[in-house]
């Protein structure tokens, strides 16, 4: 609402009544936001400066929890690096994979609705079921994946049971579940929204296929790419259930991601103060990553209507 017109507008009683009624309609969200988002955020910021065990009262520690995280906790940096590795791999490969799948589905092929449904199905599978069925597919001795590799003369690794292969296994599972999901559907809609005339005139100018892709398609769908990458980064950094069920952070901490660390501190060791500090570190990482992506997006994202 423009502030300049605000005063006289606000003082008319009919409009004031309309405003009050508007606040009443949105009040469920406002209350929910205060109770379940803003309030808890402030509370966890406070708790992050304390030692708090359930049943007791918080003891002020100052910055000690943060110092402990950054310089004493032997699991902190490794879990963060592991999470970053997982996130870069799944967002990078996943975004490219979803875009390629969308391009494939956008071809004028028979049965593309069938294929779209087939690609989409893995993303609907509940994560616990996903973890269980892939544990079996990746079973080292009689699993389907190693059997297929055996057919090709390759001796497959131990996958989820191997320290070296556990994170790549989880990346593989995430890609299988994520490539054909909502991200692909959004890309597909983005591709179909690119005006035909652009391709036609580029063709008249003699542009090659690759030139058309890089000079027309990519710029035209760049807002969609930005949206998918931002949400993808948040989702991958939050990886929890898949690792918790498939490997429980193992073998020997090989898949111990940051949110697992947070979870165990909060709900196994009940160190609510320290867990809150971890949660705030996590929030700041997500916030900075999202902020940087939005901030630098004007260098590569093309907005048609801005």
């Amino acid at each position, binding site marked *: 609402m423009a502030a300049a017109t605000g005063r006289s507008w606000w003082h008319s009683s009919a409009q004031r009544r309309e405003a009050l009624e508007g606040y009443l309609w949105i009040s469920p969200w406002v209350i929910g*936001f205060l109770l379940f988002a803003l309030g808890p955020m402030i509370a966890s910021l406070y708790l992050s400066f304390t030692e708090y065990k359930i049943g007791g009262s918080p003891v002020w520690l100052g910055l000690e929890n943060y110092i402990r995280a950054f310089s004493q906790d032997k699991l902190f940096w490794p879990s963060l690096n592991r999470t970053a590795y997982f996130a870069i791999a799944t967002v990078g490969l996943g975004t490219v994979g979803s875009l390629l799948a969308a391009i494939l589905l956008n071809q004028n092929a028979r049965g593309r*609705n069938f294929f779209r449904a*087939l690609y*989409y199905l893995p993303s609907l599978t509940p994560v*616990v079921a996903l973890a*269980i069925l892939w544990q079996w597919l990746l079973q080292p001795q009689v699993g389907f994946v190693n059997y297929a590799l055996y057919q090709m003369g390759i001796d497959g690794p131990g996958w989820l049971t191997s320290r070296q292969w556990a994170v790549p296994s989880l990346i593989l599972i995430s890609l299988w579940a994520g490539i054909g999901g909502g991200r692909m559907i959004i890309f597909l809609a983005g591709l179909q929204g690119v005006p035909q005339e652009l391709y036609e005139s580029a063709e008249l100018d003699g542009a090659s296929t690759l030139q058309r892709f890089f000079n027309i398609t990519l710029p035209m769908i760049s807002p969609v790419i930005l949206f998918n990458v931002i949400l993808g980064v948040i989702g991958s950094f939050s990886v929890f259930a898949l690792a918790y069920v498939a490997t429980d952070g193992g073998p020997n901490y090989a898949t111990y991601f940051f949110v697992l660390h947070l979870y165990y501190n909060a709900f196994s060791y009940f160190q609510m103060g320290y867990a809150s500090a971890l949660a705030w570190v996590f929030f700041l990482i997500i916030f900075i990553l999202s902020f940087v992506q939005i901030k630098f997006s004007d260098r590569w994202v093309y907005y048609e209507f801005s």
Partner: protein
Amino acid sequence: MTTSKQSAPISFERERPAGKSAARYILGRRLSRVWLYTLLIVTGLAFGLPFFWTISSSLKSITEIYIFPPTMWPAEIRWKNYADVFTIAPFARFIWNTVIVTLLAMLGQILSAAVVAFGFTRFRFPGRESLFVLVLSTIMLPWQVTIVPQFLLFRYLGWINTYWPLIIPSYFGGGAFYIFLLRQFFLTIPKDLDEAAKLDGASNFRIFWNIVLPLSKAALATVAIFSFIGHWNEFFAPLIYLNSTDKFTISIGLRYFVSNPFESDEPREAILMAASLITALPVLILFFVAQKYFVQGIVTTGLKG
């Protein structure tokens, strides 16, 4: 917010005129039909074979499932694995619990997101635009930041090991995605209808209930479907709030299945596969029944956000 000019969700069913496919320009005409279908089928197999393998494994006997090289399809189909799922663990109970929680939470999300979206589209009030931006920004707020105080709050209220923490938050706003989706839809409903009803003396609540909601069935169905799937598949909240086995929802029930050894040491992979498939089944069926709502919902929240 950038709003694109398309007013209707993009249809995927639309056929392009022959020779005018955008994708042909993208990948070029040299991508022959043969290559196209080869790629479609190979990727289709990559996504489909794991499901096939799961189904096949779920029907194998204890001895056959450990044979190497593995058989593609069981020599003898063993339906009993599916019955065993329900006798070995209280799986029917898990399903029932999940149905209750999912339906109650879904109802809350639909009602509350619709009410809030109505407020954002039909009333002018100071701060409306910035509040709506705030709604959208909560999409990017990771739940990990709020989980500890939320847990303490629900613990203080004595709600641990009850379904309230899984249900009650749905009644307060219903989630930013759904508010956004319904707001976009409500904006397309002409206000002339409201004005006409107002002249007849209808209250805002009547306009909401008798005009806007009935005209929004498609959008409400989309919200209902995504909300259903979200709650059916929910893992973290049940994990931290539910302690006793008889209260478990299906996701943590399935995990309980894995982590608690059976009385005998027999291999149980086949039964696990059957249990996983039973867990995923409602969502997969819902997808096949209501495919068009999926596409519309994803496109509205993705492209216009």
